[in-house]
Each structure stands twice: as C-alpha cells, then as structure tokens.
C-alpha cells in the first residue's frame, strides 16, 4: 500500500524483526541456542569431547624449529646430469664461488645467522625452476643442505642438495685454485 508523495517508498512500520530491541533479543536468542547446541553436541560426541572447564593449563609453546622445509640429497653423478628447468644454486662464500663454480650456477650465499634474502629468493624464482639443486661446502653441517631446507621452508617446491657439496661434485681432480 503506497501513500502520497516521497513517503510512498517507506514502509509504514518497520517489520518487527528490524526494530533494535527485537534485533538484540533475536541475537541473544541465537547465542543461547548456539550455546545449547554446543553443550549438547559436546556431550553426545565422546570421541571429540572436551571438558567444559580446562583442568590443566594448555601447553601452548613448543620448541621453535630451525627449518620448516625438507630437502632430499642428490648424488654428485645426478647433480652433474642436470636438465632444462633445473637450477643450480651455489650456497658457498664469494671467494669459493669465484674460485670455482659449475657453469650457470646462481650464487645465493648461505649465512648461518641470517635467513636467505628476498633478493636471493627472487633470483631463484625468476628462473622458474622445475627443480632447485643447492651446492654447498660439503662440510658437516653442509651449507647446501641448510640453504636447501631454508628455501623449501619458504615454499619452493622440489628442492634438493648435492650430497658432499662442491668437493664431491668436482670429483677427485681439483684444478689449481
């Protein structure tokens, strides 16, 4: 039913469910209903039941992990036979990289105290790698494995490291430095 003039669009009286007092009442009823269903479902589910009041404080803390990712080792032979889409990353220091590195290897140095830089991460990703193979110093711990796990933790898929690092990859014959 429309009245004259601009008031025509307005409803005569706000329907009950729009009035503030009713809205508040309805909201409160929903909360009560929710509480009722919650308590009932809790009682009826013995496998998933929790106590209404926790008796022990929750053990909220766990040891902080160093690495969130995993990386598998590749043998030096496999690492020498890389295909398209494989990106080799050299995790060693600048001097070691300059002294020798496999052709085409990306230099992303690993630091035990600082996580891999955004810029380094970007350089790896910009190559759109199918697989990332990290070459380290072959020490114990191997910096290649450490960087590989760090990259995997940042979300890069298919990360590997060369077992034995650069010394293993170069093989027995080491050229003059």
């Amino acid at each position, binding site marked *: 039913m429309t009245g004259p003039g*601009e008031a025509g*669009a307005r409803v005569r009286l706000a329907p009950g469910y729009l009035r503030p007092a009713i809205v508040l009442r309805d909201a409160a009823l929903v909360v009560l209903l929710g509480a009722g269903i919650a308590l009932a479902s809790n009682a009826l589910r013995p496998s998933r039941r*929790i106590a209404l009041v926790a008796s022990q404080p*929750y053990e909220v803390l766990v040891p902080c992990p160093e690495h969130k990712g995993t990386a598998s080792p590749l043998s030096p032979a496999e690492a020498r036979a890389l295909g398209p889409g494989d990106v080799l990353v050299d995790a060693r220091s600048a001097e070691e990289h300059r002294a020798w590195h496999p052709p085409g290897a990306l230099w992303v140095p690993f630091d035990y105290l600082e996580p891999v830089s955004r810029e380094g991460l970007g350089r790896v990703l910009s190559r759109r790698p199918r697989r990332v193979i990290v070459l380290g110093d072959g020490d114990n711990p191997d910096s290649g494995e450490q960087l590989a796990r760090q990259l995997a933790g940042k979300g890069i898929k298919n990360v590997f490291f060369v077992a034995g690092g650069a010394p293993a990859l170069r093989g027995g014959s080491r050229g003059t430095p």
Partner: protein
Amino acid sequence: MRKLLDWRGHAWLCLPARLYLGFVFLYACWHKIADPAAFALDVATYQLLPLQLVNLAALVLPWVELLAGVMIVVGFRTRAAALLVAGMMVVFIAALGWALHLGLDMSCGCFASASEADPISGKTLLRDGGWLALSLYVIIFDRRPLGLDRIVERTTTSTT
C-alpha cells in the same frame, strides 16, 4: 540521509555482502566444530581469556558462527545475524590486536596451535576490518533484506 537509507537498492547491494559474509563464517566454523580440542588450544594461545573460560568459548563460538552464517545467507532475522557477525568481528579484531601487541608471531612455529598456515599480521587486521565494515553496512542500510523474512512477510500480508 533519510533518502539514502530508504533507497530500495540497498537490499540488492546487501545481498552479495550477506552471502559473502555468510559463507566466510560457514567455511571458518567448520574445522572448529570438527575439532574442538584444537580450537581450544588456538583460543588459549591468544592468552586473552582466563583458563576457565577457554573451553566454553571454544565450544560455543563455532556454533554461533554457524547459526549466524546460515541466518544471514537465508535472510532470516538478517539484522540480528549481521549484528552477531559484527560483534564477532569486533572480538576477533580485538584478539588479533592483542596478539600482535604481545608479539605472538604464530608463523614462527613456536606454538602448538595448528594455525601456522595462516599467520596473523596487519593484513589480517585489515581483512577483518573490511568484514566488520560490510556487516555494519548490512545492519544499517539493509531495511528490507531479501530472503526468508521477506518471503514470509509477503505471504502473510497478501493473505490479509
């Protein structure tokens, strides 16, 4: 202002907002109902509620989310549902702000809570603020929400 409030188009604009909010809440409440113990641990991690209230909150909240989500999608007591949504958003934003203030960076892996995949940050705060704004829009401007209530209203008035 009156004219702005009375514009009939609001009901249509609010519809996608309502559907979006409703589905966000329905999606969010699912895992909390499925595993109350894990959600209770999440709640405890925020260190906001005293221990005695953690379990009750963890049990009741997901069901209120479910009911409010269904109501706001279906259009039953939409304003009340939107009010609940807004109220819960205020609570979540407060908890988030508190956690950020405490420096609780849950993505560092130091917490037993499984919500590491969704680290909290300023972005989360902005997202929640956006949802709060949407729900406030629905509360204030949706005068004749499309949905169940309107259908019922139409059928009852047409019979008179």
